[in-house]
């Protein structure tokens, strides 16, 4: 099966073009945007880890190492498409237009973090594994019924493929030819469980054979192949040809979340090697250098822009009004039930006058 699903690549680890696919479409503009986005989300991710360490946000799920998969796929979307990310795909969500302040608010335990900017159809990060996959199928089915040409993308990890919802979602989508792209980031671990214990197959792409839908396995650290193959899958979706499964093979350098200690279950040497050899940013830098497009100043500039943007978002997050206890009661139903009203009144009366912030 591995030979039936080779890992497609356009650019190798040295930044060399190894395949003529999509050659004419690789323009300076597009690549510079790739690079900018990769850098932007990497800087954000690192900053978020350090915010967590300082206790300024809660547990955080870093994606460092997976930037090309997230940037390439998110940039392939049209503005009116639907995105269904997991807790690790805020890189993709950010690139697709989510608000950085809200992303930070999410990681700070605030529901405001789940609200996308107006007009952006981004779902809250999926926490129960694989459950967002059927949602994407439903949203896509809705587009199909409406006769639009919008599509949906569902993100999920290698571990997610073991859940029933993965199977039920892909099967239903295949039957109704829903315009949806199933975008798998195979980072080869589900917390501590390596892929060999997660599945008997060597590839995730081959799981598409169970639904007779097309699939492709690709180097998830090669932003070129990720972008163009996602674009192709989205085009199929828009043309009414149904779903596609994309397996982007990648790796997270860091911990599963800031609450996790990867040295318990894997040798971090592999991660360090990958940082040097297959890193999505370094690789694109090498390409830029090979092409003579690498400009130190430009890089400094986008770096400083990104840092400014991030600092601004952090400031906004931290200046954000304190949690209003009424909020936990007011959004359960369109009209609160009497139980909720009664509980709210009693509670607000009890904490009233005080600073509304109770301590235990």
């Amino acid at each position, binding site marked *: 099966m591995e030979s039936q699903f080779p890992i497609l690549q356009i650019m190798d680890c040295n930044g060399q073009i190894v395949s003529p696919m999509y050659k004419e479409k690789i323009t300076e503009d597009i690549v510079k945007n790739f690079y900018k986005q990769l850098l932007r989300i990497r800087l954000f991710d690192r900053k978020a880890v350090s915010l967590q360490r300082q206790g300024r946000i809660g547990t955080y799920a870093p994606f460092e190492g997976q930037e090309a998969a997230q940037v390439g796929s998110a940039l392939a979307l049209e503005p009116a498409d639907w995105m269904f990310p997991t807790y690790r795909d805020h890189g993709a969500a950010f690139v697709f237009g989510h608000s950085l302040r809200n992303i930070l608010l999410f990681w700070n335990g605030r529901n405001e973090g789940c609200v996308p900017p107006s007009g952006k159809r981004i779902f809250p990060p999926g926490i129960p594994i694989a459950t967002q996959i059927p949602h994407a199928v439903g*949203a896509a089915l809705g587009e199909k019924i409406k006769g639009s040409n919008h599509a949906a993308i569902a993100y999920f990890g290698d571990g997610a493929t073991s859940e029933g*919802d993965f*199977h039920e979602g892909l*099967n239903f989508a295949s039957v109704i030819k829903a315009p949806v792209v199933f975008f798998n980031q195979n980072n080869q671990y589900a917390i501590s469980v390596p892929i060999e214990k997660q599945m008997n197959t060597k590839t995730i792409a081959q799981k598409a054979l169970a639904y007779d839908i097309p699939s492709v396995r690709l180097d998830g650290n090669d932003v070129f192949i990720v972008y163009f193959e996602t674009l192709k899958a989205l085009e199929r979706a828009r043309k009414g040809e149904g779903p596609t499964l994309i397996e982007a093979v990648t790796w997270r350098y860091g911990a599963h979340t800031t609450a996790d200690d990867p040295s318990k279950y894997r040798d971090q040497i592999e991660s360090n090697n990958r940082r040097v050899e297959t890193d999505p940013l370094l690789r694109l830098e090498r390409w830029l250098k090979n092409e003579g497009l690498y400009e130190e100043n430009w890089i400094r500039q986008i770096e400083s822009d990104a840092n400014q943007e991030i600092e601004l978002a952090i400031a906004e997050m931290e200046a954000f009004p304190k949690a209003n206890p009424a909020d936990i009661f007011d959004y359960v139903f369109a009209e609160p039930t009497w139980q909720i009203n009664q509980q709210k009144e009693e509670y607000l009366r009890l904490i009233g006058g005080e600073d509304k912030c109770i301590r235990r």
Partner: protein
Amino acid sequence: MYTAIKTRTITLIQAITDALDTMMEEKSEVLLLGEDIGRNGGVFRATDGLLEKYGEDRVIDTPLSEAGFVGAGIGLSVNGFIPIIEIQFLGFIYPAYEQIMTHATRLRMRTMGHYTVPMVIRAPYGAGVRAPEIHCDSTEAIFTHMPGIKVVCPSSPYDAKGLLIAAIEDSDPVLFMEPMRCYRSIREEVPEGKYTVEIGRGKKLLEGDDVSIITWGAMVPIVLKAAKEMKEKGVQCDVIDLRTLYPIDYEIIADSVQKTGRTVIVHEAHATGGVGNDVLAIINETSFLFQKAPVERVTGFDVPVPYFGFEDHYLPSEARIIHAIKKVMSF
């Protein structure tokens, strides 16, 4: 001024079909998903004729995957549709429990109202029809405990149509439980066209000053029989059909219990953790000083709903209800 309203004398299951048809006609966003609901018209014929009338885009026969199609319903909801999902029997809703518990009920809160799930999940429930195992569950309590979903359970054709239309018009998810035993056992005049019965309001079926009997769904006819028998013995029962199990109509309960001081709760589900306990909690909170006797609960036992060879033993019977009424009367 009177307006002549056309009515038809129909069964509860026909009232369901009528409600679906009425709302599909009115709102193009309404669509149906479920197993065998298309050409077959549903195993109980609730969707009979609707595929032919509204087409395959709006009456969708799904693969056998409750989590998958409830999940897809959530995706349709946030994309502007009003999906009405048929779960073939309530006992087969469990694979979809995660989707309902973690998403259908939480999306509004999670996104502070940005995404909502105006979905209706219809599910036939209950024992007493000699169906195989698992087909007979009455597990409303695992949904009433879940914040973010309303639970409705009509016992008559009129209420079924009006409540189902109300559920479809509700902006939040509603679990609509249909008592299988009442599907074809009762006929009633039901208005044509659109009307609603308010979610959250119970209904007084019989007035009496001696004892309040609080029940719903398939237990209603049995309670009424018991109440009639007690009437002959001189005990006047105040019979309440709750109709909505979340949010329960606490006023109708409080008014009745404050009048009678004696209460019998009758439901088909197990006693422990049953919705009857919520009624008890309402009585505790609203009518403590009015109570003349401990509340009696006549419920399914704390055992799995047994195979149909034993189901008559499991289900609350007239005899058990009468026994409970006598008990509260003689306390």
